[in-house]
């Protein structure tokens, strides 16, 4: 973890065991069997994410960064190795609703209003009507959509839908957020605005975040650490500590900062060390 100053928010402790570690990935491999032979998506990956830490996974297409996130979310199971979330096996953590998740597609249910979409995880886990409405109001305010609770997703722009999806992922105040290129389909302007919003939200909630991206500036801007991955088979190439200060202190101005450019350069170098440079790499 970067050297945080005193104002780094402390996440609400939800688990007793392994209090300081949110995610622990040990010797994880994932092999997809196919007709044309087995494909090794991940090979012997080790990664530890501390509670409250923001870690980005970056790498060219096919480096297994999304696969790694899916293993942490228990949406997929490793062929070898173990994944623990707050000291528990990933499957237990999933059933305990220990994490919130957001994908590249907002994935809102089109027949539910914005508010009902945010309430969905709470509803499924038995929160009462009043409690749900109250929480939805807070979250709508947090993502700046207070006036849109009664709208249907189709009435919202892509960026607004993505904000709803982020609000939904935060509904149960998880101590871990998993995000798979949540801003990948957005235009650059919206993207930068939402990045800043995500920093603010993260500072307010103190959650640990595992963030998959293929944008170097995005990874540097948001993260405490950036995990650079290489493809075929997917491996951790290098882990860079960013050290741009606590999430709450990072403003838009940091994008113009010399330190920011240095870090962008460092990540770019680490990625270029991967031969050959994969397609789909976003070097902006």
């Amino acid at each position, binding site marked *: 973890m970067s050297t945080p100053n005193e104002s780094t928010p402390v996440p609400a402790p939800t688990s007793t065991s392994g209090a300081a570690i949110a995610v622990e990935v040990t010797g994880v491999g994932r092999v997809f069997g196919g007709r044309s032979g087995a494909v090794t998506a991940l090979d012997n990956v080790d990664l530890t994410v501390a509670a409250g830490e923001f870690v980005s996974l970056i790498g060219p297409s096919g480096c297994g960064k999304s696969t790694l996130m899916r293993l942490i979310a228990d949406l997929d199971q490793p062929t070898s190795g173990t994944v623990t979330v707050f000291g528990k096996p990933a499957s237990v953590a999933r059933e305990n*609703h220990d994490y919130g998740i957001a994908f590249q*597609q907002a994935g809102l249910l*089109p*027949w539910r209003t914005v508010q009902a979409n945010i309430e969905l995880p709470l509803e*499924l886990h038995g929160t009462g009507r009043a409690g749900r409405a109250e929480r939805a109001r807070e979250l709508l305010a947090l993502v700046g959509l207070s006036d849109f609770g009664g709208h249907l997703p189709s009435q919202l722009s892509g960026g607004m839908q993505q904000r709803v999806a982020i609000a939904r992922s935060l509904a149960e105040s998880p101590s871990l957020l998993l995000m798979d290129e949540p801003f990948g389909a957005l235009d650059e302007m919206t993207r930068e605005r939402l990045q800043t919003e995500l920093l603010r939200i993260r500072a307010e909630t103190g959650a640990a975040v595992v963030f998959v991206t293929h944008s170097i500036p995005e990874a540097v801007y948001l993260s405490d650490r950036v995990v650079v991955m290489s493809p075929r088979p997917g491996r951790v190439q290098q882990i860079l500590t960013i050290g741009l200060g606590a999430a709450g202190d990072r403003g838009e101005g940091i994008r113009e900062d010399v330190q920011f450019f240095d870090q962008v350069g460092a990540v770019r170098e680490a990625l270029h060390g991967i031969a050959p440079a994969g397609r789909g790499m976003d070097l902006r």
Partner: protein
Amino acid sequence: MTSRRPSGRTRAILTGVLGIVALMAVWELYKWLAPDGGVTVGGATVLPRASDTAMPHLWEMAERAGQPVNRSSSAVPLWRAVLEAGAFSFRVAAIGWLVGVVVGFLLAIVMQRFRTARSAVLPWVVLSQTVPLIALAPLVKGWGNKLEFGSFQWEPWMSVAVIASYLAFFPVAVGVLRGLGSPEAVHLDLMRSFGIGWWRTLWRLRLPASVPYLLPALRLAAANAVVGAVVAEVSTGLKGGLGRMIIEFSQAGSSDPAKAWAPIFGAVLVGLVAAGVVALIGLTLRRYRYAEVS
């Protein structure tokens, strides 16, 4: 579903009326222009006969509908007899439709749940629709007559309802199966991340997502049920409905040609009412029709 502008709705009604008027005009025009005996080329009729027996004038049909069914003193007007027969056929078709929808739904859910069930059942579902109704009707009637539980007695109309349901379940099974499989991967991942099982995913995600596929299936099922009921009435010889009436009246065709058309219009009416009922169901499910699939 786009929001309907009032002008769009008026236009739709106008087009509908225009279509009917055009059809009537074509009928009368053909009758006026074509020779009574039709046109035959080398012994084969290429254009139908236009005599009064074959193609009565529209106003004759309308006039006949107002007159008594037959010469007996207790005879009701023809239009009433047709409406009563239509109501009878509609009831039987509705029961057949309901049974078909329930069966189709259950089949679709089982097929969605178990991959093996899908590969085992789906070919039979498709194959079932290739069995001719005429072959099926006597079988169903025969089996029904052997059924008896306690005070329950198999009524002849039940055979007709079963045959109607046999035609109705098919579009529902196929349509709902597609609808249940329509949620995107991201939605399924999300449900899994919420830690809910198959049943709750079915209820929260798959069923609502299947509505755009369900409604066209219900419409098809309604049309099939009406056709099935009318044809099955003929095949099983059930009295009281339109099927039997069509046969009876057409036998009196040469002496009273306009009469035979009345039950046909009755069948059209039953079909329209059935389609209307499905449209009403569609209105109650409006929220889920974010994308209509036909």
